[in-house]
């Protein structure tokens, strides 16, 4: 069992290399047997990496402290769910997780399409195997998770050894979200490999039309959805665990996760141009390439120590491997594009600047501007040191100054874009579509001003949020009204019918609404308040409408940690509202103390309490209270985004016209004169898109 994991990883590497060689040979010689053999090798990689992951998990669950990785990241008293999550607590394990998730995607991409697209799939298999080969090389030779502990005995001979107990899991990671946040983020990062592989394969094989876009649409959405969830879970973890009252610090590692998400978002929008009008083919291919490259760059930033970050892994030579791989990817992508660039000519031209097409162009431009600004700010310290020899800091105020206007413009386009027609929009249509949403936004702004909303960015965000919400509602309303009039159904069921007839479009609107909620949540930041106070038992701290009475401080012992806990009673307008128990945990194995924040969350505001510990000056307990408005909207918005993405991935419910004699129609009398009396709509759930 001890060598099974490393043996499986080595075999997986061999299988991946074979998949490349046999795949290329199959493409060149056009021998089906070879391409099938390459595909099967690709499938085998998943099985072998799964065995390796299973072995490592087994070592964690059986407290096998002869394994260096297990000894470094686990201990006997660690709860089982954290032992499971300890797999990705360090560099070696997280790279193995990456490989496993990548091989899972590759497995399903190859399996689902095993009898489809015979001209395309061999290329896809080779690209996927190429990426897997890189990560498996790291797993086997650079950062192996299966290293064993060894020490020299008295005679100087090296022998295997084992610790009686491990060093334990980093206390910062001992929080429920850390069990799911890294896999979600990695599912996003690795998921973008599939559209990348299909795009590169289509380019290399000069696969006709927009087929690769249709094939990869759901894969891209899945990856994008996971990336969104991963980013939001990370933000929530930072909010709930780090105890600084915020959720986004523009840390390089956070930025690294945001970059591919932004280009992925741009891609999800611009593919519609290619699908509908056969335009932006070069752009789309490069967007997918860039998204994949940013995933690799993000990993490079996280692991190389190039940039300073609180949660970047320690500096190691692994960064050189990622630089090499990134250069290889850039060269392959550029060479493929250059060789086959004539294949990417647009079928259509732009008919008007006031059209859905141009709104997509601007949407992409703004998203790319945001991506560039984040990347520029993240890498500028490195650039500055390289050019002028001075290391400078680029902190949150820079990113806020640069990105807030960009984000607000993007929010505006979220409302404007869907209301523009394909090809050309007339002035009358503009007036009709925008009048009410615009008026609603202005009214909301005036009301906010009356209620003392003075921060300019937050005010604009609120106005745009209302505007976009109204445009989305108007889209649903107008579509549903047509269906309700035709079917004689009520408006609510017509909305359901409308949504299910074009899940992609209306699911997209739901995602937009989720983004509006997130934006409104972020707009609450300028109104944050905080108070820190030394509080003996019986003392009170006042913040906003709340009065917090310190009732007690006690200690609670746990197998994994000891905690010091404050018991606080929260009053509002003199009336007791709730009890809060912020605590500090002292983890026995790692000898590290961490805070556990107490949050009372409501749609209007979060009361966020940190028990900071005892004052170093006089030993008094210190409570730090924050009042953070609208934070809950961000998490709720995230849920809406996920639901909307799920909806957009559902197949459309198709409608079929069934001829039926007029006499048999029970509702024939109610049919409007404009509708043909022989057309009755029968619905069928269709699994295909």
């Amino acid at each position, binding site marked *: 069992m001890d060598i099974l994991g490393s043996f499986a990883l080595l075999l997986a590497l061999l299988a991946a290399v074979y998949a490349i060689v046999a795949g290329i040979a199959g493409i060149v010689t056009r021998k089906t047997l070879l391409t099938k053999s390459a595909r099967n090798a690709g499938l085998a990689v998943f099985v072998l990496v799964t065995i390796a992951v299973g072995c490592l998990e087994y070592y964690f669950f059986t407290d096998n402290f002869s394994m260096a990785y297990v000894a470094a990241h686990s201990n006997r008293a660690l709860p089982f769910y954290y032992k499971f999550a300890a797999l990705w607590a360090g560099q070696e394990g997280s790279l193995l997780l990456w490989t496993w998730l990548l091989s899972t995607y590759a497995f399903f991409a190859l399996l689902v399409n095993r009898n489809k697209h015979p001209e395309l799939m061999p290329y896809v298999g080779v690209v996927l195997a190429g990426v897997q080969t890189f990560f498996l090389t790291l797993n086997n030779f650079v950062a192996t998770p299966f290293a064993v502990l060894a020490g020299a005995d008295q005679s100087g001979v090296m022998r295997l050894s084992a610790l009686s107990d491990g060093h334990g899991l980093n206390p*910062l990671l001992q929080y429920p979200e850390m069990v799911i946040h890294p896999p979600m983020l990695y599912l996003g990062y690795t998921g973008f490999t599939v559209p990348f592989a299909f795009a590169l394969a289509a380019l290399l094989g000069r696969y006709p039309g927009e087929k690769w876009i249709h094939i990869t649409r759901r894969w891209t959405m899945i990856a994008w959805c996971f990336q969104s969830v991963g980013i939001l879970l990370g933000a929530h973890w930072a909010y709930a665990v*780090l*105890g*600084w009252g915020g959720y986004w610090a523009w*840390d390089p590692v956070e930025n690294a996760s945001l970059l591919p998400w932004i280009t992925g978002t741009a891609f999800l929008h611009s593919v519609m141009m290619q699908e509908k009008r056969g335009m932006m083919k070069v752009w789309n291919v490069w967007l997918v390439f860039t998204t994949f490259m940013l995933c690799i760059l993000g990993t490079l930033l996280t692991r190389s120590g190039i940039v300073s*970050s*609180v949660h970047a892994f320690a500096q190691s030579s692994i960064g050189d491997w990622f630089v090499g791989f990134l250069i290889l990817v850039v060269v392959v992508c550029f060479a493929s594009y250059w060789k086959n660039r004539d294949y990417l000519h*647009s079928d*259509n*031209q*732009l*008919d*008007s*600047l006031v059209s859905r097409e*141009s709104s997509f*162009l*601007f949407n992409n*431009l703004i998203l*790319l*501007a945001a991506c*560039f*600004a984040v990347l*520029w*700010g993240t890498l*500028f310290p490195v650039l*500055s040191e390289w*050019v*002028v020899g*001075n*290391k*400078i*800091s*680029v*902190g*949150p*105020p*820079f990113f806020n*100054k*640069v990105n807030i206007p*960009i984000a607000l413009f993007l929010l505006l386009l979220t409302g404007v874009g869907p209301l523009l027609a*394909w090809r050309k929009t007339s002035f009358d249509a503009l007036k009709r579509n925008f009048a009410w949403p615009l008026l609603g936004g202005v009214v909301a702004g005036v009301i906010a001003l009356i209620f003392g909303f003075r921060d300019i960015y937050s005010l604009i965000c609120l106005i745009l949020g209302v505007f976009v919400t109204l445009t989305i509602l108007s889209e649903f309303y107008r*579509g549903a009204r*047509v269906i309700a009039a035709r079917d004689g159904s009520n408006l609510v069921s017509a909305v359901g019918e409308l949504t299910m*007839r*074009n899940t992609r*479009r209306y699911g997209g609107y739901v995602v937009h609404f989720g983004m509006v909620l997130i934006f409104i949540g972020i707009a609450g930041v300028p109104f944050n308040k905080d108070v*820190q106070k030394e509080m003996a038992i019986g003392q009170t701290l006042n913040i906003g409408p709340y009065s917090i009475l310190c009732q007690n401080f006690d200690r609670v012992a746990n197998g994994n940690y000891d905690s010091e806990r404050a018991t606080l009673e929260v009053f509002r307008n003199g009336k007791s509202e709730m009890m809060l128990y912020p605590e*500090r945990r002292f983890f026995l194995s790692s000898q*590290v*103390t*961490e*805070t556990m924040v107490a949050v009372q969350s409501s749609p209007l505001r979060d009361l966020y309490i*940190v028990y*900071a*510990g*005892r*004052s*170093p*000056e006089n030993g008094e307990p*210190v409570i730090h209270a924050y009042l953070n408005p609208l934070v809950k909207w961000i998490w709720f918005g995230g849920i809406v985004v996920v639901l909307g993405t799920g909806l957009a991935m559902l197949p459309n419910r198709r409608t079929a016209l069934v001829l039926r004699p007029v006499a048999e129609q029970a509702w024939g009398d109610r049919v409007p004169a404009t509708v043909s009396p022989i057309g009755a709509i029968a619905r069928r759930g269709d699994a295909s898109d």
Partner: protein
Amino acid sequence: MIRRHTAKARCLRVRPRLLALATFLFAVQGSLLISYPLYAQQTDRGKELGRRVKCMCGGCEDSATGCNHTGGSFSGPCDTAKGMQKEINERVTRNESDDLTLQAFVQEYGPTVLIVPPAKGFNLAAWIMPVVAPLLALVLVWFVARRWRHKGMLATASGPEVPSEFLSRARREAGKEYDE
């Protein structure tokens, strides 16, 4: 003698004033010393300045005001951040300008202490590029869009006449799109 007496008398007259001044200065200084830990975190200007400099402990990427180290016996500003806050507070009390205060930190720790790069020299590029690059891209998009549009118009003008049944079919399908 008279002169000596006069001098002594003058000295006696002056001493109470000096004593009062010394007492006043001591009281002011004393109150400042006592109030440093409190005011370091509560003066708005001090807080704001603390947000513009980075905590230089090397263990975090926070500002001096926002430093919030977890671990140890206390979660909050570390000793380095507290020292920086205290220095800021002293300078605020002396009514030094913001620029002077920040400059003093730059001299002590180097330019990396500033949480955002100053907009001068090479660092100006940090601020300019996020504005210039999208503007250049906008110009590019504008030209591309115009070129596309121009090509489209030329293609329509020089193309064959579209049969009326094709046009009506296209309109029907365009109408359907709204329904979709």
